[in-house]
């Protein structure tokens, strides 16, 4: 078995930075009691200003004031780590979060699918970079060795036990995961490298040090199995990005929205499911969050499409109050059935299946903007149609000609004496549902040469009402 260790050296910082559009600006995470605020992590731009982790906030502010401050949020870091585990679950069925800021993946059984390790590793790196996480990746024959080697290496791949012993032997003794006092005791004995410790007789080590030391060394070399707890993906997606400024326009919400939908797509791909309904919550400083529901007619998981749909819905929504946070939650995750495509499709490149096109149109124009047309067996013209898609083909019934256009509301006819080409045709129906009509319809020709369908109330010579055009 082989294991890959993905070490995330600045997870807390990345978790904040990826939610911000200006990742190059100086940023520092602070924690501690209100009396003694301490910098927990700083990014490269802040480091250039002279800020260091461990500095007190007042000392940092004495150096510079041009950096943003964000509260260090342990819960957010854990959420981020769980999200990364969900991402890693796409590549391996055994993903462990046992160590902080570390993702351990079992890779031996995934190599068949994701190619030889260099290609697999390149893919992991590419996806992590696009998700916005700094990382170091090391592969080794056992999980603990991978974790320890990641302390000092990036991109190292160790295959055989001999090579592993060699690589571990070069590690300095303080960085191999031994307890602090053990490491310093070994260093005081003049043992600087692990190689020197491994060369010692086991009995001597067992006599001088607690039993855990030998156990740790055995696990490192893969001579003792290590019990790890594996990640099990959750059943629903819920993630939020806190904005550390107040947003009052849609435009500024698009960047965090793109992040959230991309995360959702990554999560769905890991579960091999799609999403049919999800909701966006715009959290305000005060008052209840406003909710934007996004519904699709079929399960989808294309990131660009999810973003575009969510954006369409969001842009219709009024931002009633400044937004402080954006949350995306999806509970309903049905199975994803990829659309069936022909290998030799004649349609051009930008082709979009009708279902996706319909979603796109509905997202921008409104839910009711796109509809079908269906005939109803009713003599009243206004009742003879329905805005739904017909389920079965309907056959045309013979009879007098009908106009191609029906006006939504009958209008008064401008002319008083039009030329009558056919009629009258009496339509009298609807006494049972309150929409009683008694009309005499005529096919008339207007002065301009147009043909129209107009009626007068039955038996009366009242004004003409225009109801359709023979177009």
């Amino acid at each position: 078995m082989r294991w890959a260790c993905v070490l995330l050296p600045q997870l807390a910082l990345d978790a904040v930075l990826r939610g911000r559009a200006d990742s190059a600006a100086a940023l520092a995470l602070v924690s501690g009691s209100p009396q003694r605020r301490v910098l927990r992590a700083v990014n490269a731009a802040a480091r250039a200003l002279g800020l260091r982790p461990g500095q007190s906030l007042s000392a940092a502010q004495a150096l510079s004031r041009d950096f943003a401050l964000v509260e260090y949020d342990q819960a957010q870091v854990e959420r981020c780590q769980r999200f990364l585990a969900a991402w890693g679950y796409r590549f391996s069925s055994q993903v462990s979060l046992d160590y902080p800021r570390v993702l351990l993946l079992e890779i031996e059984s995934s190599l068949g699918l994701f190619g030889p390790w260099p290609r697999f590793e390149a893919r992991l790196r590419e996806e992590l970079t696009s998700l916005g996480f700094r990382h170091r990746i090391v592969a080794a024959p056992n999980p603990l060795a991978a974790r320890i080697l990641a302390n000092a290496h990036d991109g190292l791949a160790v295959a055989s036990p001999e090579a592993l012993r060699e690589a571990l032997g070069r590690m300095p003794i303080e960085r191999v995961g031994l307890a602090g006092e053990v490491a310093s005791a070994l260093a005081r004995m003049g043992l600087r490298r692990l190689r020197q410790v491994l060369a010692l007789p086991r009995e001597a080590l067992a006599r001088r040090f607690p039993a855990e030391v030998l156990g740790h060394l055995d696990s490192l070399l893969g001579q003792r199995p290590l019990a790890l707890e594996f990640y099990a993906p959750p059943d629903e997606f819920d993630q939020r990005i806190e904005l550390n400024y107040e947003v009052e326009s849609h435009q500024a919400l698009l960047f965090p929205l793109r992040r959230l939908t991309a995360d959702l797509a990554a999560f769905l791909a890991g579960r091999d499911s799609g999403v049919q309904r999800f909701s966006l919550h715009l959290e305000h400083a005060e008052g209840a969050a406003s909710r934007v529901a996004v519904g699709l007619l079929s399960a989808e998981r294309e990131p660009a499409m999810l973003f575009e749909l969510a954006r369409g819905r969001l842009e219709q929504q009024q931002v009633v109050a400044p937004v402080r946070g954006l949350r995306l939650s999806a509970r309903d995750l049905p199975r994803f059935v990829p659309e069936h495509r022909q290998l030799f499709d004649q349609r051009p490149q930008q082709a979009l299946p009708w279902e996706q096109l319909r979603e796109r149109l509905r997202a921008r124009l409104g839910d009711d903007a796109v509809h079908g047309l269906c005939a109803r067996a009713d003599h009243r013209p206004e009742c003879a149609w329905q805005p739904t898609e017909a389920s079965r083909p309907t056959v045309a019934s013979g009879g007098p000609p009908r106009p191609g256009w029906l006006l939504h509301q009958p209008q008064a006819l401008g002319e008083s004496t039009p030329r009558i080409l056919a009629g009258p045709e009496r339509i009298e129906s609807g006494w049972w549902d309150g929409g009683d009509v008694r009309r005499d319809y005529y096919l008339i020709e207007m002065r301009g040469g147009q043909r129209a369908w107009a009626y007068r109330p039955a038996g009366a010579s009242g004004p003409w009402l225009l109801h359709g055009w023979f177009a």
Partner: protein
Amino acid sequence: MGAVVALDALLDQRRVWKGRPTSQPASAQPTGHAALDALLPTGGWPAAALSEILYAADGCGELRLLWPTLARLTASGERVALVAPPHLPYPPAWQAAGVDLRRLALIAASGREALWAAEQCLRSGSCGAVLCWLPQADDRALRRLQVAAETGQTLAFAYRPLTAARNPSPAALRLAVDACPAQLRVLKCRGGLPPAAPLSLAGLG
């Protein structure tokens, strides 16, 4: 230079080359009206291009012109999108014309949204034909539609008022439908000279 040279002699000596009209490939999209097909250079609608129908007023036969095409497309399972129709398509009449209503999609939109929707439908390539009603559309909007129709390999029909006939247009085919007298004029057709004589609408049925 003053000498008069007989044209026949020149042609016989092969000093003047006489171009022959190249025959256009027959269109795969006949209009369904034999008289109109005969007038058009490709014998049908220009495929994957925008056709403009400029009509004088509602009710002068502008739908009858397209019904045979729509009936043929819907019968073969293609979808037809109507973007921003001015009135409601009355099902009995459309069925009587042979249009399969299940293949019809109505898209309610107005102004610029209608243009956007029509372009999306055309680009997607998932429709057999897209009909849109554009009371106000400028040259650039039509060009976008024309490009979208080419991209999506879709028949595009734009209904516009007859007053727009004065302005130039990038459409491949421009038809004007007059109400009085009821006649059809070809204003422009790609790949040939527009025929001078109008076509009586009564003959189209």
